[in-house]
């Protein structure tokens, strides 16, 4: 799963999709996930990184991550 090319994410968490003109505000975790996706990391690697970095259990992380990816897909930000 990859983030579509050309998606711009600024330091303050503002995301702009230049193909559609859509824009979104990401919270810090969302920004972190998208930046990792942009760098080409796999979802598995990103989950591992978040597990190490934050106080979260695997079940909550997987559920929230899956929800987040569905939202990204819905807004046309991912290349599956």
């Amino acid at each position, binding site marked *: 799963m990859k983030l579509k090319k050309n998606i711009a994410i600024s330091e303050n968490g503002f995301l702009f999709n*230049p*193909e559609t*003109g859509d824009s979104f505000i990401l919270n810090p975790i969302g920004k972190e996930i998208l930046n990792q996706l942009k760098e080409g990391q796999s979802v598995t690697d990103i989950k591992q990184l978040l597990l190490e970095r934050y106080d979260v259990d695997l079940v909550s992380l997987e559920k929230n991550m899956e929800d987040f990816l569905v939202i990204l897909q819905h807004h046309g930000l991912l290349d599956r």
Partner: protein
Amino acid sequence: MKKTKYHIAVTGLNNTDNPGPGIPVIRSLRESKDFDVRIIGLAYENLEPGIYMPDMVDKTYQIPYPSSGMDSLLKRIEYIHSRERLDVIIPNFDAELYSFIQSKERLKAIGIKTFLPTIDQFEERQKTNLGKYGQKYGIKVPMSKVIVHRHDIEQLKESFEYPLLVKGKFYDAYLAYSEEQVKSHFDRISAKWGMPVIIQEFIRGTEVNVIALGDGLGNTVGAVPMRKQYITDKGKAWGGVTIANDSMLELTRDLIKKTQWQGGMELELIKTMNNEYFLIEINPRIPAWVYLAVAAGQNLPEALVKLALGLNPPPFLNYKVGKMFIRYSYDLIGDISQFGALSVSGEM
């Protein structure tokens, strides 16, 4: 080297909440790196804001409404030309374009150039012909039907689902959720714009537009796609952003190639959830948001003037993505004597 100064007449100075393209066109021309301009504003109403905006028009003349006929318009233009030695006229209203297109040769004979679509190009893209247009040029268009009688409304349920759009032949579009609403919009639109009224299938999606300039030989001189970010209750963009969209650019280039479009144009499109593009309307002129294209790197009004003068502007190859425009309102202060001068003498 001293730049050549062209005298350019521009209409559409109504910089209101339903703005004409005149002021953004003038702003673009004043930024030309290749020529200087003297701008002659052509106004229909004494209170068109562009008349009073500083550093926009050098002189304004009133002109008669298109409904007064072509002869009275041309007589007035000839008078203005005798005073101003016009090089180019850029008309910016849909309702006046027919007269200016028809007058092309008469204007040319006295030394005034235009760069407008041909009468065939203008006519075939009329809202009333959209279905045929889509079929001819291979573009998806919403189903539409032209009606001229109120009693035609009852039969709409056989071919349309609600909501549907009720549109005037030049301007205005209202969404109707019931037969009663269609009747009410039909009355309002037919009283304002006359017949026919167009009924159009409502396509759900995002409104996106392309501004483009065709050289009349099938080539696209420039094209910039824009996504509306904020739409007023009159359906006008109050904010928009340039986007990188190859499908929209391809659709535009293909249409210009097939139609050999001459002049400025605006394609109004709806992008559906399935990434399909439906052509809703073609405005056969430069749109009011043209300055966004200029800010993104394509000075299309400048290129249009060059084309009108027989110069060959090179095509624009790119533009900046993520450039945004936001309209605003601002109270200009004038003096009643300015209004008086225009009212009495028809020029200011």
